[in-house]
């Protein structure tokens, strides 16, 4: 070996490279193992379960069946046995999907100015503002959601103040409405938008903005043509971070929306719980994953194309 190495020093280098690679792999190994076990393992279980027959009292029977997958989209009518679209599943999916879109847009509207404000503070003060953004994460999600209830309820803070000021003369029904869900979701997911956008604005070279103004760009043009393309990676990251968990969100809509209308997450839970149809539940959750993947691929493609066009 050493003899060879003496003749071909390139090989020695390659050897060192390989060793280096190996040690890097070794360092990454724990993470890889955890991801494989925690993500791929259960996923495989779900795939297998989605092709089995539901057990009488939950669980699955080891008998192949396409019923679970078929029932995500079409079902036999309860009363006359004809095949019909599973409109309940589709409308519940649409509800979750549109809620996620609205949440993403709202967090963008509130998050981008917030991130901009923080990033343009003097360096010493930024930490303080960032610290404030993370404060909600210190408390459990359920506790925060229930705290929002105290604000929104008929005898809650908002209604009491409005009544005292004489702006309204009867409490406004805010709890258990779509407004309450939107309010709660925006609050819960706002930090996930602010942080990546902040990181992008922080790196923004403000001389470029000045240059745009020097070249007679108005404030809007400078924002659209210079700032937006530069902070776009942050906005993309923030949107993904908000959109995906919103799709599966289930505590906030349930507690603030009153649980009258199912979210997709609740629909899946129903199949694994009271519905006792695990294959359908598994198929529905895989369908949700597929929808997320398609939406993501589309989003990344559209936004990156715009970027190269711009």
């Amino acid at each position: 070996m050493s003899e060879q190495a003496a003749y071909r020093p390139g090989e020695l280098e390659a050897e060192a490279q390989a060793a280096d690679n190996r040690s890097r792999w070794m360092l990454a190994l724990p993470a890889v193992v955890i991801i494989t076990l925690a993500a791929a393992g259960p996923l495989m279980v779900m795939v297998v379960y989605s092709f089995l027959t539901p057990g009488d009292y939950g669980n699955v029977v080891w008998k192949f069946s396409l019923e679970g997958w078929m029932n995500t989209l079409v079902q036999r009518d309860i009363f006359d046995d004809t095949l019909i679209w599973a409109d309940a599943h589709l409308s519940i999916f649409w509800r979750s999907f549109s809620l996620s879109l609205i949440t993403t847009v709202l967090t963008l509207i509130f998050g981008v100015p917030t991130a901009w404000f923080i990033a343009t503070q003097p360096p010493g003060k930024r930490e303080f503002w960032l610290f404030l953004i993370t404060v909600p994460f210190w408390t459990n999600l359920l506790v925060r959601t229930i705290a929002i209830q105290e604000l929104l309820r008929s005898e809650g803070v908002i209604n009491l103040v409005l009544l005292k000021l004489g702006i309204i003369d009867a409490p406004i029904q805010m709890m258990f409405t779509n407004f309450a869900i939107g309010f709660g979701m925006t609050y819960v997911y706002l930090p996930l938008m602010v942080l990546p956008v902040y990181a992008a604005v922080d790196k923004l070279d403000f001389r470029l903005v000045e240059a745009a103004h020097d070249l007679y760009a108005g404030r809007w043009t400078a924002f659209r043509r210079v700032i937006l393309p530069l902070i776009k990676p942050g906005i993309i990251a923030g949107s993904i971070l908000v959109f995906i968990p919103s799709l599966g969100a289930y505590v906030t809509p349930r507690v603030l929306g009153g649980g009258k209308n199912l979210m997709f997450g609740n629909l899946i839970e129903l199949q694994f719980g009271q519905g006792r149809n695990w294959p359908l539940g598994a198929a529905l959750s895989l369908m949700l994953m597929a929808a997320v993947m398609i939406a993501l691929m589309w989003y990344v493609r559209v936004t990156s194309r715009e970027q190269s066009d711009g």
Partner: protein
Amino acid sequence: MRHVLAAASALALMAGGAYAKELNIYNWGNYTNPKLIEKFEAETGIKVTITDYDSNDTALAKVKAGGHGFDIVVPTHTYVPIWISEGLLAETRPDQMENFKNMDAKWVDVDWDPGRHYTVPWQWGTTGVVVNTKYYSGDINTSAIFLDPPEELRGKINVVPEMGDVMVMAIMYAGGEPCTDDKEVLKKVHETLLNAKQHWLGMDYGNLEKFAKEDLWAGVNWNGSTFRMRLQNEAIAYGYPKEGYPLWMDSVAVLKDAKNMDEAKAFQNFVMDPENAALISEFARYANGISGSEAFMPEDMMTAPEIVIPEELKAAGKFNGTCAPETQALYTRIWTDLQK
């Protein structure tokens, strides 16, 4: 600092070691009187840990998955046959235990556990309607409160998302029997529920303080929970639907793979003592199945309208059986449709 930590962990270890015996109870949330547990620990020296669940299905799924570490579970009567047939319960023979003599005779030969070979009564109650009488003064002994709501209550109604109870009430309102698979009846149920839903505000659990603070004015609820609401707001009343309403009983069972079998059996025997059974009721405000426990209960339990069923409405209360899986599947479809 390190010394302090070391001392603290040593203390913690010692404290842990003080209890040689342990018992892990898996029960509904907000359902177990801490005083009952303190008494059991003091009398037996067994350290008790309680874990909460929020539905029978959650409990069943978790225990079936294995590795749970629980010794005791408290399923509702409709689920007891499932637990038994799935081979999850130990046949502990409560009927041969010392305190069995205290069990009210009417709870011994029950459909879900004839002769009580597996389970011991924890609490029993009814599912009915709750109404804030400040806002509605008409007849409240009817499921029309939530299935065909009076004008005054519309938009302020909450229905607990308990498929079994709500379906049974809607089926009996439509003139059917619990667990029916009669398509005509179910069609009517489907229509009634979908029509009624536009008048509901929510479908949620744990609404004690929302009723007390009058965010909600009416709905489907359990009797003991309504009792606790009334203690916070006097205008709240409980109705027994004359069209029919479900009776239920939750029972203490021991899991087959319990690690602390003797401790679990001791607990089953313990809750059949009248004084201890009274503690259970004092907290969650439901009746128990133990004779003589009345003597130890708070005065207001004897006369509470949520506990004492009016004579003329007694017959309307029914214990529903465990529905066939195919029927259950139909109900799930209607239930999903209701919430789409």
